[in-house]
């Protein structure tokens, strides 16, 4: 109930901000509520017409005091302050209606909490800012709560998406009103009370913050909706390693060296299938495999046509499988030769390291 009443109150305030006119307001009993621009500058309470100061949307106070209102100025007859019957609540928070004051009681005003002392303008301003920010935040939270409770979708993901969508829509809707609020606030600020200014500032600041800084205030909620739009990260399948029978046999050190590569299998050689330009596939042999690295051990490095052709084959098949090749050579001298020939051929996906026999 309190949320509903507050939403109606905020809606009327927004209507005034957008159009400059007030919607017809009715009390719960059906009695039409009127706007009262007259305001006691000392304690912020409403007074009868002509008593206290006139706080309208424009014009000057008939009393010569600073004023921002013109509503009802022509019909103002100014009784003395002592004769004024104080009614209603404070203005400036968007409520432009008078409310009958309960007999014998105090109005529901913040000023009432400081009896006997004039309000401190600084304190009033800060308090108003807090109220405005609180209302904006409260309305946002209320919307989130509504989205959660009215959306019967069972998955958290959809609920989160609904919340984020609602918030983003609210942000877009509040964009223009926020700017209008700023302009209207500039017009009215000269004559508003400190608390009125503070509240309006807080409201505008809150709305602007929601508008221009969703990443800061709402990033987590909005990110839930964006999850549906994010393209899933590409994951690559593990390398398609084939194994062929090793046909070369020897008891010499070079054979033992080649067979000792990491991931090698006795009597078998790991291969990658190279896709040719015509679509056919041919295997390229290596000596070992370690994760995404394919190892080729070289007892020595040569610079001959078929050795260069092998470098191109290996580089191509590694690129096709999105892998990196490693040449393991027995000495640093061989490593130097390998690095130079790879550099000459502009091959960057084959690295070289020394692996002692």
């Amino acid at each position, binding site marked *: 109930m309190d949320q509903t009443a507050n939403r109606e109150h905020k809606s009327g305030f927004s209507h005034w901000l957008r159009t400059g006119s007030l919607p017809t307001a009715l009390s719960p009993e059906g009695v039409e509520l009127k706007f009262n621009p007259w305001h006691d500058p000392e304690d912020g309470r409403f007074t009868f017409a002509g008593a206290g100061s006139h706080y309208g949307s424009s014009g000057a106070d008939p009393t010569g005091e600073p004023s921002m209102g013109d509503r009802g100025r022509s019909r103002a007859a100014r009784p003395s302050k002592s004769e004024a019957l104080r009614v209603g609540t404070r203005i400036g928070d968007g409520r432009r209606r008078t409310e009958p004051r309960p007999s014998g009681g105090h109005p529901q005003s913040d000023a009432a909490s400081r009896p006997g002392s004039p309000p401190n303008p600084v304190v009033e301003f800060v308090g108003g800012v807090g109220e405005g920010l609180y209302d904006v935040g409260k309305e946002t939270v209320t919307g989130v709560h509504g989205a959660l409770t009215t959306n019967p979708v069972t998955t958290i993901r959809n609920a989160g998406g609904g919340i984020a969508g609602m918030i983003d829509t609210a942000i877009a809707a509040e964009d223009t009103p926020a700017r209008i609020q700023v302009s209207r606030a500039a017009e009215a600020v000269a004559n508003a009370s400190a608390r009125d200014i503070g509240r309006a500032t807080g409201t505008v600041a809150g709305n602007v913050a929601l508008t221009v800084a969703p990443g800061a205030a709402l990033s987590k909620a909005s990110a839930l909706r964006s999850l549906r739009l994010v393209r899933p990260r590409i994951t690559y399948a593990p390398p398609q390693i084939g194994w062929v029978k090793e*046909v*070369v046999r*020897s008891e*010499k050190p*070079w054979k033992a060296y*080649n067979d000792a590569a990491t991931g090698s299998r006795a009597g078998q050689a790991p291969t990658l299938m190279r896709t040719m330009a015509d679509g056919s596939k041919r295997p*390229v*042999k290596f000596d070992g495999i370690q994760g995404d690295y394919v190892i080729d051990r*070289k*007892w*020595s*490095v*040569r*610079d*001959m*046509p*078929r*050795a260069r*052709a*092998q470098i191109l*084959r290996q580089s191509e098949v590694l690129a096709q499988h999105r892998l990196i090749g490693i040449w393991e050579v027995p000495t640093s*001298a061989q490593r130097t*030769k390998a690095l*130079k020939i790879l550099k*000459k051929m502009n091959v960057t996906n084959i690295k070289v390291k020394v692996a002692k026999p």
Partner: protein
Amino acid sequence: MIAKQVARIIAEYVVFLELTDEEELNLDTAVEASEVLGAQLEALDKGFLRELVDAFAVIAAEYSGDAHEVVRNIAYGFYLEEALAADDPVKLAELEALRDARD
């Protein structure tokens, strides 16, 4: 004299590894075999290796076409001059410059 005979044996083997059709000889296996041969040549006695290097240039005339190029470039492709100049940094630098200029 003996160097030329050994050079001819090595040259035949190298031509086989480099020019045999892919359907007859796996390319990766051919490269692996030539890598082993290269290491063995580098390990030869320096004096005999010098004679072999000189012999390859002589016997290359006995081959034609692609085989001629293969035999003529054996010393270059197996880094045999670099093996002979392993203890001479100046000579190594000169050979490196020549290799870079060739490409």
